[in-house]
């Protein structure tokens, strides 16, 4: 059961930072979220490896239990989370936003895929920013369909 969802909560001033790791599935327990009393909560998805359809349901329900008025941000969202966000409604509740996320790039010269962490502000007009390969320095291709991949930025 090593991959069960883990949640590490850290409160700094008016902000609660929650680092999530493992798999979000039907067994995920988000009951701790009810007690959050800060004005802002930041979810870090860096270590989330997967979220299945039941996990999506658990997640959406848990967010509805948060106290009204709390500002929600997502950071370090992996590609697989972004795909789920793009296909399912309600993953990002109204007023929440994805502040940073991973996006696939491909280096032709090295013939390899590189996941790049982008900030919301890096993607104006839903156009992927130009990125250089960390190994060879060549310009990499954005390796997804921009309009499809960045669709989630319209949510929240």
């Amino acid at each position, binding site marked *: *059961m*090593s*991959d*069960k969802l883990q949640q590490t909560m850290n409160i700094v001033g008016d902000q609660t930072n929650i680092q999530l790791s493992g*798999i979000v*599935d*039907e067994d995920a327990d988000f009951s701790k979220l009810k007690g959050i009393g800060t004005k802002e909560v930041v979810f870090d998805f860096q270590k989330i*490896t*997967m979220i*299945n*359809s*039941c996990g*999506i*349901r658990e997640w*959406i*329900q848990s967010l509805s239990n948060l106290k009204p008025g709390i500002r929600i941000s997502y950071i370090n969202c992996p*590609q*697989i989370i972004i*795909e*789920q966000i793009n*296909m*399912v*409604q*309600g993953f990002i509740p109204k007023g929440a936003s994805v502040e940073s996320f991973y996006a*696939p790039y*491909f280096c*032709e010269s090295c*013939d390899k*895929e590189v*996941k790049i962490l982008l900030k919301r502000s890096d993607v104006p007009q839903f156009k992927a920013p130009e990125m250089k390969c960390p190994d060879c320095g060549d310009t990499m*291709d*954005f*390796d*997804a*369909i921009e309009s*499809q*991949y960045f669709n989630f930025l319209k949510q929240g």
Partner: protein
Amino acid sequence: MGKVGVPLKLKFTIVILALLLGSVGFYVYYAIDIFRKDKSADIYNNSLVSANQISKELNGFLLNNLKNLKRVSTNPNIGSIIKSYLAEESHLFAIEIYENKLGKWQRTQFEFEKNYTSLYDKSGNLPEIDISKNNLLKSAVHFSHNENIPGWILSYEMVPGSKILISRVKIDFLKQMLTSTAELFSAKIVDAKGISLVSLSSTNETNYKNELLEFSSQAVRQLVKKVGDSLVAFVKVDDFPLIVETFISEKKAFSAAAELQKKSIYFGTLIFSLVVIVAVLFARALTKNIQLLTQATEKVALGEFETQLNIKSNDEIGMLAKSFEFMGREILKYIEEMKEKSRLENEVKVAQLVQQTYFPKNYEKIKNIETSYQFKSASECGGDWWGYYSDDNYFNFLICDATGHGVPAALLTATASSALATMEKLADKNDLGPKRMLEIFNSIVAELEGQINLTAIAGRINMSTGELNYSNASHHPIWIIKNESEKSIKERIEPLLGTPGLRIGQHKETQYEEFSYQLKNGDEILLITDGILELENIEAKAYGQRRLIKALEASSELNPSEKLSFVMKDAMTFSDDKNNDDITLSLVKWTDQTQTRLESESNQIHLFCSKTLDPMKLMPTPEHNIVVHFEDIQHFLAKDKYLVVAPSDLQNLENKSRAIVFSNLSNEENIKILKSDDVFHLVGENSPYLFEEINLAMTSFDSDLIDLMKKGAEIKSIQLSAGDNNSDIIEKFLKNFDFSEYFESPANYLHFMALELVNNIIMHGEVSKTELSFIKSRNYVAIRVKDNVGKLDRNTIVDAIWRGYEEKTPKQDGRGAGLGLYLTYSQCNQLWINSLPNVSTEIVCLIESNKRYKKYKERITSFHFILRGHV
């Protein structure tokens, strides 16, 4: 050329005249209007001035005469003075004295002008005035109409009630007062009742009685107004109950304006006529030159480029004519140049055609050898060449690449062709091997002593044994593509390096080494010139070996001809269809005759496709043993065959379950098709393994999919049970496999899909155990789960996908979230469901071999539902 509709000169004349008519007409109208307004004010003023003048003159005249009368009456010698007074005052015609004697007024003394009275009375007498009747004592001025002799009577009472002095004023004199204005105005002196007292006309009453009576009753002294079509002025006489009336008809008042208008029309007509004449003459002069130009263009159109125009004018038309003549001369010059260029181009084309005859057939099967080539020249003629000949047991070939390209290099390839043809003739007598072939070729080229060399490879295949002998003259090495389909192309390629010799033509005495290689059944020999490797794209990146290998990988299932065609297309797409060097690709496939198993025609699958589909996208390769027919879908109804249709054909198709929908629509649109139409097979148009899919769809009606996918694939399975941490187990299971030929995270997607399917079966279904298999072939990776219940039918599956697509939110109740199948369908490239009702349901989710995540996402997901025992 067509006829002229409305001539230019007519247009020009009409425009000029319209402009002139408009401007003159406007000017005349405007001027007359101003003139009329000005005249109108003037006439009003003059009318009043005239009336006032008469009024003042009359008032002064009457006052003066009454004063004189008084003066005469006080003269002691009145008896003698009245005669002299009458003589002095020519406007008087009588002076009389009346006295009241015993109540009766009698004329006691009088003088009169007989000449005047005789004009009105034949006797010339002056009748007496009835003083009482005429009421002369009440008024100093009497305006009598009833007297025989017309005139006004002025009286002065010398002795009140008993003696009165009277003078009579000639009416003609009063009329003279009015004549001063008669030239323009008519005038009358009328009393307050409108009775005309003095008038030049015969009427005794004013024509404007109502207006006069109204004026008379008012306190105003003067008035001017328009009555009917006349202007009328009334002015009261200051000291007498008299009114001076002047009037003038509007016609007369504005006669000057009318005259001006009339003269303007005459003048305008004159100007108009002059302008018509001038405009016609000018337009004729202008259009004459244009007509000449038009005629000249018609001649040019007929090929008479030397047409001279003889237009002398120095205006724009003249310049145009000169330019036209110049253009004609230039065209002639250009035509001559074009003729020369065309002659040269034709010669190059002929050279190109001649060079094409040096090349063999694009595809040829000689016994157990299949050979094909692709050639793309950098210019009209190329410097690459490929050729071969065969005899009973040997297949001999030669590929060469002259340095540079164009005509000089092409001429050298002619030498190569001739050399091989000569060797073919010699072959019957001499046992020529590749080494000798190159040495002979080298000696021929070296004899030419040209600056151009060639790289070349000569080879010979023993068609019975598959032994390949070859010699290399500094050419790109032969690549053997081994017939080991379970391996990747990279692993299958073996370059035959050996020791290359000098270039052909470099040194006359060059000796070449010969090497040998044993081909196996189905092995292919790839020969290329360096043009493809050095091909550059717009960013100056070379196509290189890596892309060549990738293209070979992608086309590995195709036959030699299609394979080379695919690679060439891929390379030219990369370079945006531009190549600076000639490109030649040749492939020779050797098949071991002892192992060859020709498939009989009875095994061929006939696939019927709608005519609405693009045939280029549905070209099967020989490996698939599929014959494709394109027909109108109406003909499908009578046939029990496999049908491939476009989404738009569905509305006209009765039995949709037999159709394989070949869709170019998005996944979302395809979900709608699955929901609305009873479609069992939907294939994404961009499927890279289209015929494998179709083949599998058509052959899987009596077995599990996994059994059909076994060939050339690696399969591993695990058992999963309810209550286990299946997510963890699946993740660890997938870590055992190599995904290096894929984008970074196919394992994540397979993990997700496997977990969704397993959960559906063992957590939400009726069983507690299931088997999860992982399948990896050269073309794809897949996960497969199977239940032994067989309760899932097509509509249940499609409804679940549809629910996720439609709602896009998880269910709030129930065991599942209602999104799993929708997300699974969206994340795999092929979704297969193989159902044996009430026995088992097998689900396979497949991700195709692909390095690029973007391509994976662009792939339109294929859907296949196989109902065992049903086509």
